[in-house]
């Protein structure tokens, strides 16, 4: 089955360029004529994932794959990893440092937002081994889902 992948580098602590990969993904999906509500959900997730890598992670990569029936987002970073995934998923819980918080990040809503907007979210992480987040969006479910 046909699919197209796009990869974008994510640089740790680069707040100035953070979000650019998500902007490009958003533009690409529009050119592909995807449902606007679905694009919005994907863009929200992609932005949150990108920001997580920028705030907490080491350098990493964001990969988007578009196929006939689904879209996936995969973010891999070489950061410190997550010790307690269940705790990290709780709204409001954050380990962001003072610098990130001063810039308006670190509200502890990143992972919960991703969970709410993706049809499926899988997290693989352990301390010292980086983090891999995989999100799946079903194209036929367009228009439904979280706000």
């Amino acid at each position, binding site marked *: 089955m046909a699919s197209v992948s796009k990869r974008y580098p994510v640089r740790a602590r680069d707040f100035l360029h953070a979000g650019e990969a998500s902007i490009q993904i958003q533009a690409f999906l529009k*050119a592909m*004529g995807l449902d606007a509500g679905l694009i919005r959900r994907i863009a929200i997730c992609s932005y949150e994932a990108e920001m997580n890598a920028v705030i907490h992670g080491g350098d990493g990569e964001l990969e988007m794959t578009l196929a006939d029936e689904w879209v996936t987002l995969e973010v891999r970073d070489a950061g410190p990893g997550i010790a307690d995934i269940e705790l990290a998923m709780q709204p409001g819980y954050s380990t962001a440092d003072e610098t990130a918080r001063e810039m308006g990040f670190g509200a502890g809503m990143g992972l919960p937002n991703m969970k709410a907007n993706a049809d499926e979210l899988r997290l693989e992480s352990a301390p010292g081994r980086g983090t891999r987040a995989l999100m799946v969006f079903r194209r036929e479910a367009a228009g439904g889902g979280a706000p």
Partner: protein
Amino acid sequence: MSPNTRETSYVRFHAERCQGCAACLKVCPTKAIRIRGRKSLCLVDRCIGCGACIGACAAGAITPAVHPVSGVGEGHTAIALVSPVLYAQFPNVMPRDVLKGLRRLGFHHTVDSSIFLEMFQFAAAEFIRRNRTAAEAPWPLISPVCPAVVRLIAFKFPQLLAHVLPVLRPVALMAREVRETLLPQAAARGRPVVLYYINPCPTMGASRTPPGPFPVPLTEVSLGINELYPALRQAVEEAVAEAEPFGREGFEFETCTTGNASLVAMSGGEIASMRIEASLAVSGMQETIAYLSKIEMGLFRDVEYFELRTCREGCLGGALNAVDKYLAKSNIHRMIHIYGLGRRIPRQSILRLYDRGRFRPEQSPTALAERFADRKPPLRLEQAAEIERLLGELPGYGCGACGAPDCPTFAEDVVRGLAERSECVWLAPGPRAARNRRGGKR
């Protein structure tokens, strides 16, 4: 796409002057321009009239589709609608003297926009105040003032049209007031009326007939500040030298500008006196696009109002100004020192107008969506895969030699059948291309 035109509603391309430098390709936010046979061509149905290409073209090959400055006041009543940007082009000249200069050029009335700007700012702030606690208003709201921003939204971010503040733009308020004031006089005199908008950008186009009945022929035309400037400069100098009195036969709102209005000509000036705490001002095309993308991603929900301008530094940076934007800005700072920033219209009188619905726009956002939407058919998955494959062969320099703004756009054009592979100097057969490929990027 219709690739054979050299004219849109907003800009004209003069092939004989084009040097093929590709500067215009790079700045067009909708990627509407291609160079064919070394001459610029515009793909007309993608032009939103922002004027970025005019500002980028050093060869003068792209000009605005504005009205020519000739015959002002001949056989018609000529009314100049003046933006505060005009005053900023004249250092050490009082705005009133600029208006006197306009009258010397043949304009019968000169209408200053400052009270309409003030009314708009009040109505905008009032709308936000009243809807602050209501859930319906889509936050953040986006300023309707810059037409290029609103069209950019219709083209690239149609989902955000609902965020555009539903309040009449200052220039629309001004035009309506003039039409209503003129109505009895115009009928009595029987002469045609022409409203001249003196504009810093080409967003209005050349001319249009306003909607609604009017007893005599009424047209609205757009004049570029830079076209008018040489003659106006001379007329202003004469007016200052003769210290001529300001005619008082005009409308009551013909009186002159305020510090607040001058401020609106530059980025941040619209929100500066609106007293909305959670507001942001952004200027520049790339910056505007980046912020719109993020607003669409659901960021900035805690911001109530965005002032966006596609021109850097705001309207002072418009492509049709006569004076450099930074010099103009210093003139504005001087005017603010002279005039201060107080309000001129009593709150109660604007509130009455607001409650009578006088600030509600006539046009719905859907009409804009229909006119400026991106009409390119969506790509199929196989096409997207083909584009990716082609991108792997392309150098990614974005040199513009093929006539497209960048490699991804070229690849898309090839896949859509609008360009040939061989138009890329990298892919074209021949010794140079072979050499290029040997020392290639990937």
